[in-house]
């Protein structure tokens, strides 16, 4: 067996383990929390009273305008000096959640705003309240349009979790760094780590495709839209 293959096989288990225990949970949790935060932020910007709109805009402005790595450092290394001490994993989770929240709020806002006014009026005309119209009429239609851009956010997130290595989360990329430190084989090990990220995002692409097809079927439309 060639040397590089042996090396890859030997390091596969620790890398996959780190991915399974840290990368995947970090991704799933921050996406779930981030999407909820994004949804609330979008509602605040679209329908909230003026002060709330200002808060939501400020939040999106800060998060989108500063580097994710810097945000993680502020949360993990910076906050302890004001008495807020977080473990690495929760610190990373907060950072990624805030990030996904800001980006996804723009997507949610756009897709909700894209639903024609007539759909709201039709809902009101049959007696629905604002909330019922949103939940029953607007969101199901908006969700269809939101799948591709939200999938983008999700796939970016999988890769961005590698930044958590810098705040001491022992996730996939940090595991790779540690193996490199003992084997001195950066090319092989980092390529292996890259391939695992590639596999994870490929799984998500396939899931996105299936979800799009399913949503398209439930409206009698072709998957390519209109």
């Amino acid at each position, binding site marked *: 067996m060639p040397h590089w293959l042996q090396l890859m096989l030997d390091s596969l288990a620790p890398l996959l383990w780190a991915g399974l225990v840290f990368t995947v949970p970090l991704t799933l949790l921050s996406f779930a929390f981030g999407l909820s935060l994004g949804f609330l932020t979008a509602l605040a910007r679209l329908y909230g009273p003026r002060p709330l709109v200002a808060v939501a805009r400020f939040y999106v402005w800060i998060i989108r305008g500063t580097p994710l790595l810097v945000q993680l450092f502020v949360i993990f290394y910076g906050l302890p000096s004001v008495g807020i001490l977080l473990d690495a994993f929760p610190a990373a989770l907060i950072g990624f959640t805030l990030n996904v929240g800001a980006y996804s709020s723009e997507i949610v806002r756009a897709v909700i705003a894209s639903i*024609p006014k007539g759909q709201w009026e039709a809902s009101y005309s049959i007696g629905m309240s604002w909330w019922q119209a949103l939940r029953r009429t607007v969101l199901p239609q908006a969700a269809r349009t939101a799948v591709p851009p939200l999938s983008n956010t999700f796939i970016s997130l999988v890769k961005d979790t590698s930044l958590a290595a810098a705040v001491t989360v022992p996730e996939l990329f940090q595991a790779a760094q540690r193996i490199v430190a003992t084997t001195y084989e950066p090319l092989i090990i980092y390529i292996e780590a890259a391939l695992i990220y590639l596999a994870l995002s490929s799984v998500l692409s396939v899931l996105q495709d299936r979800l799009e097809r399913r949503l398209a079927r439930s409206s*009698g439309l072709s998957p390519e839209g209109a």
Partner: protein
Amino acid sequence: MIRLADIEKSFDGQKVLKRVSLAVREGSVTALIGPSGSGKSTLLRCVNLLEIPEAGELVIGEAAVRFTGRALDREAVRRIRRQTGMMFQNFQLFPHRTALGNVMESLVVVLKWPEDKARARALELLEKVGLAHKVDAWPAQLSGGQQQRVAIARALASSPSVLLCDEPTSALDPELSLEVVEVLAQLAREGTTMLIATHDLRLAARVAQDAMLLDAGEVVESGPAAQLFACPRHERTARFIATLGHPVIAV
């Protein structure tokens, strides 16, 4: 009985309804006609509070609202909407629900009927509008005339006391509009109270007993439809009816 009294409405400071009053007897059909921008659609939308007038009064059966320029309380809006059904020029069916789902929606979501009771009622209505064979179709799979007939069934599902029709045939070619006119005429014969904003004289003459001509937010003339179409009292009415280009049909 539906009564609108001294309704005033403006958009961006532009008055679109100027002290308009209108009464529709129970079981009768009134056609609102007039050129584009005359305010007929706005008046119709005031009846189910999609537009909130600045002044005037609206009475539908037991429910009454007086407009003062202040926001209405939610309960008042709910009481009025509960008694109205509406169809739109562009149908506005819910594209993510089947024909059956569209009709069931108000029963299940608003009236909280059990699923099977709502389904039975919706099937009955779809049969009535001649779409028993299309209950599982998506709106995208239906012709314009079929979509508008689903919209009629949806508007009638919760048994409103008045059906509001906003240009119900304007988006349809003459052949497709005929099937919608047929259904509306059938409903009129059965005593459905309707208020129809339309350019379509064929629809108005066929379905309405009463008619009102609006121009620039004011009532020009109102009276029995046959008389208003055949021998209008006002020169403005005659001119408008002549522009519709249809031979005037006596009813």
